[in-house]
């Protein structure tokens, strides 16, 4: 039977990690991820897991140790945030390039400078081209569910790529919410046994991991990696369906909220989707046809699914919690605009950068976005394609 809990988000992550019971965890504490490694350390100290916890001296070594342990055939996990993810940067592409099925939780936090400990997505968006699968969670429940599925996705024969699961720093990591956990045995059966390939510990069949590939082979290896993350779409969907059967909670690639007859649409990742849902309910009472799409998967990007829904609306606002400095809008906006290019009838589209460094996003802010969209539909023009929401002038 599933159990209900009322805890902070970091506890939901730690509980999922306890049930996964990885062979190796290598992690370094960083705000707001710290409580995850602290809670997990207690599980280790109390013998509630078999995990060998490597208390590394930096995140660079955390990811390096994860790569080593995964190459040695262990089931491996780590968790980080912000500066920690930035310090791992070099080894993120080693992990994906060597096809190591590592599961990492990233608690989204702004990048320095100025130094700031609160939520935005600049850390994980900075790693969006590192070859990792990226899953974003709205709340503690989704985080718990995504972490468990991540292990299966990463280790699947067709994929064998690392997976990063995101939750919003402080908003979710330190917010107390209700969530449900599965039975330990169910999680164990769901993730199954890890079946390592080409293990370093197989001393009878020695393998060279990480050789030098120059212009004669590198390109083919990268092409295979690109194919693998493309193919992971099907695996993510399949794992989601199986998980839904087990948990009763659906795991869509993109969550559609009142999109069937929607004319005005917001697309946003993570916890802000919860705020948007409240406004949608409220405006729907007034008969305004508003809706929301929340992509759960950002890499591989769900182009087709998004285009399929967005093609029917009149105007769409994409909300980005990070800047792509010097680009034409935020990362989510750029991807969505690209997804719509093939459509004959394109909706009007506008981008808002919001919530940097943990700036609150209010119901009022979201209402203003929908009313902007109404004006855009009326005039048939987007005056300012990219603007900032909730920033002082």
């Amino acid at each position: 039977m599933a159990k209900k809990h009322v805890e902070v988000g970091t506890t939901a992550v730690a509980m999922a990690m306890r049930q996964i019971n990885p062979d190796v965890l290598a992690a370094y504490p960083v705000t707001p991820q710290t409580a995850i490694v602290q809670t997990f350390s207690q599980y280790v100290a109390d013998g509630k897991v078999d995990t060998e916890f490597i208390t590394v001296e930096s995140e660079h070594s955390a990811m390096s140790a994860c790569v080593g342990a995964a190459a040695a055939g262990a089931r491996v996990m780590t968790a980080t945030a912000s500066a920690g993810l930035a310090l791992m940067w070099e080894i993120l592409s080693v992990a994906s390039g060597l096809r190591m099925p590592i599961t990492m939780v990233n608690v989204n936090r702004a990048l320095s400078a100025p130094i700031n400990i609160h939520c935005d997505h600049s850390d994980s968006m900075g790693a969006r081209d590192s070859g990792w699968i990226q899953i974003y969670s709205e709340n503690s429940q989704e985080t718990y569910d995504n972490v468990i599925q991540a292990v299966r996705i990463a280790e699947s024969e067709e994929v064998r790529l690392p997976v990063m699961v995101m939750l919003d720093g402080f908003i979710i990591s330190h917010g107390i919410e209700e969530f449900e956990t599965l039975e330990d045995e169910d999680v164990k059966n769901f993730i199954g046994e890890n079946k390592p390939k080409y293990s370093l510990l197989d001393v009878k069949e020695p393998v060279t991991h990480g050789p030098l590939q120059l212009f004669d082979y590198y390109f083919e290896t990268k092409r295979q990696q690109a194919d693998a993350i493309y193919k992971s779409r099907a695996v993510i969907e399949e794992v989601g369906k199986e998980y839904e059967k087990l948990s009763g909670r659906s795991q869509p690639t993109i969550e559609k909220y009142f999109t069937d007859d929607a004319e005005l649409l917001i697309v946003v990742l993570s916890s802000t989707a919860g705020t948007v849902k409240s406004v949608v309910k409220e405006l729907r009472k007034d008969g305004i046809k508003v809706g929301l799409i929340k992509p759960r998967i950002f890499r591989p990007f769900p182009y087709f699914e998004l285009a399929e829904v967005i093609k029917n609306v009149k105007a769409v606002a994409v909300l980005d919690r990070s800047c792509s400095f010097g680009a034409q809008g935020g990362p989510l906006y750029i991807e969505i605009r690209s997804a719509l290019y093939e459509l004959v009838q394109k909706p009007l589209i506008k981008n808002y950068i919001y919530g940097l460094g943990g700036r609150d996003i209010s119901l009022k802010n979201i209402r203003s976005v929908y009313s902007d969209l109404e004006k855009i539909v009326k005039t048939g023009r987007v005056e300012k394609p990219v603007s900032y929401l909730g920033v002082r002038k």
Partner: protein
Amino acid sequence: MVSLKEITKKERRLSPGHRLCPGCGASIVANMILWATDDPVVIGIATGCLEVSTTIYPQTAWEIPYIHSAFENAASTISGVETAYRALKKKGKIKENIKFAAFGGDGGTYDIGLQALSGAMERGHNMVYVCYDNEAYMNTGIQRSSATPLGASTTTSPAGSVIPGKLQKRKDLTYIMAAHKIPYVAQGSISHWRDLVKKAGKAFEVNGPAFLNVLSPCPRGWRYDSKLTINIAKEAVTSNFWPLYEVENGEWKLTYKPKEKTPIENWLKKQGRFKHLFKPENTHIIDEIQNYIDNDWENLLKRCSK
């Protein structure tokens, strides 16, 4: 005690045909270290000469499991491998007794990888870290490192009309590692192979981390004829520039004492990287180097006599 006869019977772990330069010390270091145990060994190598020259895809010179990840993380990578081994062994998924070693040049060890090395040693992983010290970033074209000796000309500390090569002394990494108070730390040289193999054997046998610093002459970077590698290594030892000693459970021991100390000038003269020191205006640097060596030697003798 290892004998040459025994060594010739050992299975090959690093195949010939790799692409290291003739006279390179690195492959000699790797072979001598890997002779020292009959257990299976898994190795990790930092980006550098030994790495790029032995694993040019689709070929590999390694007959044993090998991983390369990046420049600064050989120690943390192998710490992950060793931890996975303990985790899987505990669960009965691995039966063999396996040893773990990481190799890095002085760039990957003294400089960019120092933090990862220090962390891995402090955590107590059962692994041997081997630095093949060729005293500069040779793989990228002879740039200075913190292991480059005073006065040496490199491509980033070139001898010029105003500056006579590297102005700083080398870092004493072996001392730094001894300060970690790990079970075994030693300094060795390929010229004294029996001493080196014995040290490597101890390093593999101790329960916990071990560190070996091995001088690895580089014909390209040091500017000498490639057939002289072993002689150059030998004179580094007899001049007390590279003393052979070990620190076993905190006990310092000199493992070789030259019968007669050879002057450093003779060693410097054999290498093009020190050529400029023999100009009249620079010979005071040779005296300075000799002074440093003599002081360091006295200091080491004191430690070893306690």
